[in-house]
């Protein structure tokens, strides 16, 4: 820059600008820090709670009601989860198992619906595609309570449509949401019923993601494969699928994560019944915390769920990293 007399006032103005910038940053960060310290406080409280036998019904010690009648139990809650014989401990293990069953069943079923349908949608015109996508997306936009009520009316043992179809084909009607003895593949029928309802609500989301990913696959690659004599199925397996692998992994993880944290639809449809066969972790945490006032235990349970969610995320990151190297 050339030194000239006009430089001087501008330098002064820049000094003013620096001050104005600093003032702006302080004006934003200080309220933000205050607000976020609330978040830290909440996290800290959550962390401390899981080492106490804490109930909001008891008065307890002077600091946050901890201590006194809400005693410190150390790792007692976690030890109880692993080998406790109390009702809550065995219910925790049931819930954990149910959550795993739910998540493990949802993932392949979801992929088996969404990937082929998204692939089929590829080969139709844009106008139709938009319409189909809109319709498949409707349940995703619907409140899960609404979804639960709609499916409850269809699962109704007497007047429900699903049993009507079964009767039409000469089968015996089933009490979908309340029969504790019926089951398929070792999983109770009520669990299958909520899995189906959840699938119905959720598949549009993954489908939209798959449609977007498939659109990103360059058509020349597919055409080249077809010209070289590959069938459409082979082209899909050999060309398209490897190209959308990052999306596949992403979809798998997102589906797993949200199904590990399922709550709304099950709480409305069965509330964990029959015989706790649909009791999932979130539902167990909710009941312990807000029904039975057993907050220390519930906090410990949420921590376990958090660890599972973290583990799934980390596994995903590993998989994605190998993908990048590839």
């Amino acid at each position, binding site marked *: 820059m050339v030194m000239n007399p006009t430089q001087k006032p501008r330098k002064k103005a820049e000094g003013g*600008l620096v001050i*104005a*910038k*600093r*003032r*702006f*940053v302080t004006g934003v960060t200080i309220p*933000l*820090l205050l*607000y*976020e310290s609330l978040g830290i406080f*909440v*996290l800290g*409280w*959550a962390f401390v*709670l899981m080492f106490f036998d804490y109930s*909001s019904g008891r008065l307890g010690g002077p600091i*946050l009601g901890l201590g006194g009648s809400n005693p410190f139990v150390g790792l007692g809650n976690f030890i109880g989860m692993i080998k406790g014989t109390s009702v809550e401990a065995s219910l925790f293990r049931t819930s954990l198992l149910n959550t795993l069953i739910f998540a493990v069943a949802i993932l392949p079923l979801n992929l088996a619906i969404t990937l082929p*349908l998204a692939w089929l949608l590829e080969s*139709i015109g844009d106008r139709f595609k938009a319409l*189909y996508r*809109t319709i*498949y*997306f*409707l*349940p995703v*936009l*619907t*409140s899960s*309570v*609404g979804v639960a*009520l*709609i*499916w409850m*009316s269809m699962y*109704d043992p007497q*007047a*429900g449509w699903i049993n009507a179809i079964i009767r*039409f084909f000469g089968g015996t009607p089933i009490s979908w949401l309340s029969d504790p003895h019926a089951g398929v593949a070792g999983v109770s029928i009520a669990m299958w019923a909520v899995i189906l309802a959840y699938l*119905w609500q959720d598949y*549009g*989301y993954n489908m*939209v*993601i798959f449609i*977007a990913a498939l659109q990103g696959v360059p058509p020349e690659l597919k055409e080249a494969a077809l010209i070289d004599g590959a069938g459409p199925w082979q082209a899909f397996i050999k060309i398209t699928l490897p190209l959308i692998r990052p999306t596949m992994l*992403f979809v798998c993880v*997102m589906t797993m994560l*949200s199904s590990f*944290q399922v*709550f709304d639809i099950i709480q409305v449809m069965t509330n964990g019944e029959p015989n706790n066969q649909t009791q999932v972790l*979130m539902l167990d*945490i*909710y009941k312990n*915390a*807000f029904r039975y006032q057993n*907050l220390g235990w*519930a*906090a410990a349970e*949420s921590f376990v769920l*958090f660890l599972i969610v973290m583990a799934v995320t980390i596994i995903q990151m590993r998989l994605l990293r190998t993908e990048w190297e590839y």
Partner: protein
Amino acid sequence: MTTNTFPAEVRTRKPFAWGKFFSQFLLYFILTLGISFTLLPFVMMILSSFKTNLEVLQVPPTFWPKTFTLENYIKIFNDPKLPLLRFYGNSAFVSIFNVVATLFTSSLVGYMFAKFEFPGKKILFGWFLTMMMIPTQITMIPSYLILARLHLINSLWGLVIFSAVDAFGIFMLRQFCETLPSELLDAARIDGASEWQIYLRIVLPQLGAPLATLGILGFMGNWNAYLWPMIVLQKIEVRTLPIILTWFNSTHTGQGALVMAATVLIIMPILIVFLFFQRWIVQGFTMTGFK
């Protein structure tokens, strides 16, 4: 010349067309099956809401209402215990407040992280990234205890107080703000604009598309939220729509048609609005991978 090439082409085309016809037929058959499976529950809900409560108990169920009646809707509109407008108002307040608050904080903080240098910036941003990973079930219990101590249970303010800052929104808008040319901002500074003016007049208008996406996704999430509102809003009159719907269902057992009419009234209006924004919602989902 034409006679030489033509028959060959016809020969290869004809059997192919049959296969194509069959595969097209199969394609549309499967797609229609999928569409029916997706749409039928909605259709049945709407049709049931026009039946009498006796007809929905009938075995086998009727598809089309035998006696088409509006009595369920009339009953709901005249139910003094179910002032729907009030509950719509509650849901609208919660959703709009959350969206406005998070859009404001996300854009402001995102802009600051993108365009300003200050000590501790990296630590602060890392902290936000960490907060993004913490799921609600961890913070739910202490948040409830705090609200109980502040006497904010049953208050719509209590419901929104913890969600005024959204780590995900900050993260996303920071990325957008980084693409804004710094020269533009500096030019405005030299022209004498204050920092707040720059944020309001230059930065915000540039963020239209990501703000719309975040706003619609946030609105949707809040409108359909169930667990946290159920914990905080225990009195009936302050409840939001999804919790009112479960409450209505549990207080009207055995009146299937009435419950379906309530479901229609509670989920359909917003579903139609969402449909108009569908393109942006889909874009948002695919862009952010966030539900």
